[in-house]
């Protein structure tokens, strides 16, 4: 970020103050002096700013393969659930499997082992279909707990729980939970707190944040 800004500032300086920066190409009198120097020096061209260039051909676009999570295990809490890919509901909220016994992976969030961003897995704490679900135990998560998520390609990624939060839904940090940049992490989400029987919704979200265990242990 600062690097880019720095480059921009340097470039801007060069563009705005071409004479000072020594990148003038005016054909007026100064040019004759420039030409005479050029004859003495083998390189007649000024230094060109180092601007990144990429091949813009369609073939150069690499779309990283996304590994969809298919199962999550949180052994200390006795959680072992199937995970399905889910999108959005009619209100623009994340859609969840009807059964509380199953978890949903937000299909537009990074997959397993993605280089950055949050892999988001959520489930109902309770549902009309099958009652109270395993994610009701998420509120007992403790920093240091291990979670394993299995991918559709047979891979498995271990995570260490970093944080448990219970936040009012109005203040729920969705941008943070569904972050698409930054260090890779796992966001687990369910509901919690007081149930408003009039609206049929819980007032809080329970959010567990976990980070991948160092790659060194992933040799098995």
């Amino acid at each position: 970020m600062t690097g880019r800004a720095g480059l921009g500032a340097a470039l801007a300086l060069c563009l705005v103050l071409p004479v000072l920066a020594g990148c003038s190409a005016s054909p007026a009198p100064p040019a004759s002096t420039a030409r005479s120097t050029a004859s003495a020096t083998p390189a007649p061209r000024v230094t060109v700013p180092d601007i990144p260039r990429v091949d813009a051909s369609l073939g150069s676009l690499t779309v990283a393969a996304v590994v969809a999570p298919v199962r999550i295990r949180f052994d200390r809490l006795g959680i072992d659930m199937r995970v399905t890919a889910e999108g959005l509901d009619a209100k623009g909220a994340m859609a969840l499997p009807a059964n509380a016994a199953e978890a949903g992976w937000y299909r537009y969030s990074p997959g397993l082992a993605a280089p950055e961003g949050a892999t988001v897995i959520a489930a109902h704490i309770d549902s009309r279909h099958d009652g109270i679900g395993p994610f009701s135990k998420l509120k007992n998560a403790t920093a240091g707990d291990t979670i394993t998520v299995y991918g559709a390609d047979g891979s498995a990624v271990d995570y260490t729980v970093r944080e448990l939060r219970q936040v009012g839904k109005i203040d729920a940090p969705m941008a943070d939970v569904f972050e698409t940049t930054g260090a890779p992490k796992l966001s687990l989400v369910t509901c919690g707190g007081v149930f408003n029987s009039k609206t049929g919704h819980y007032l809080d979200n329970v959010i567990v944040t976990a980070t991948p265990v160092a790659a060194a242990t992933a040799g098995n």
Partner: protein
Amino acid sequence: MKTRIMAGSVAGAFLLAALAIPVSASAATNAQLSVLHGVPGVTVDVWVNGALTLNDFKPGTLAGPLSLPPATYSVAITASDATSATDKVVIGPVDLSLADGGNYTAVAHLDPAGKPTATLFTNDISKTTPGQGRLTVRHVAAAPPVDVLAGTSPVIKGLTNPKEQILNLAPATISASVVAAGTPTPALIGPADVPVVEGQNTIVYAYGSLADKSLAVAVQTITGLHTPPAGVPGGQTGAAARAESAQTLSTIGFGAFGLLLAAAAVLVVARRKAGSRA
């Protein structure tokens, strides 16, 4: 009445201006400028305000983004062996006006008749709606108006050089082809797989020349436009909450119940006493 409304809105405008000026003055955000070379067969130099900025710039290459203070810049595109911005000029000079915080792509390309020209496009960097990606298609080729097909169905119709069309779509890989407007075949370009990615603007350029059989596709992506879902409604019945409070009651419930009974007894006794006095 009319004058009063006018006065009100004028005052409002002043207020807005008063509010807006300090903000824009203090938060002068640099503009982002990318440069795409879409003139086949010519390696060029790009000069900005007279300074050589891109040396030996090859067709089909995207440079940048450059972070530039908002201003108007004079851009000239010359042959790659030019000695100044006014020597062996291929395109320009053109004035590019970059606004505060804007995101632009300047494209060197052919006009419909095949003459080199430059167009400054403003890239749509507004946030995408949750679960959507954006596809921008720009016609910068020496070719007649075109349709863009996704599979076999036209998703963009009658696009002319140098116009663009923007679609907001569910993420998918689209098998896209470009045909002359109003015709289903033959494909002038493609079919080619174009990825529409959540929170990303995929900008596709059709460039080159139909007559010279040099039509091609260039692509640029702008990430970071993602919007998270509106929420996670993770419960339906309240059963978990009831189970939890039931569990809580079972541990402290008897104590509380005992206290309630005692309080009731005290009340009853007090009332009786009051009653006997009357």
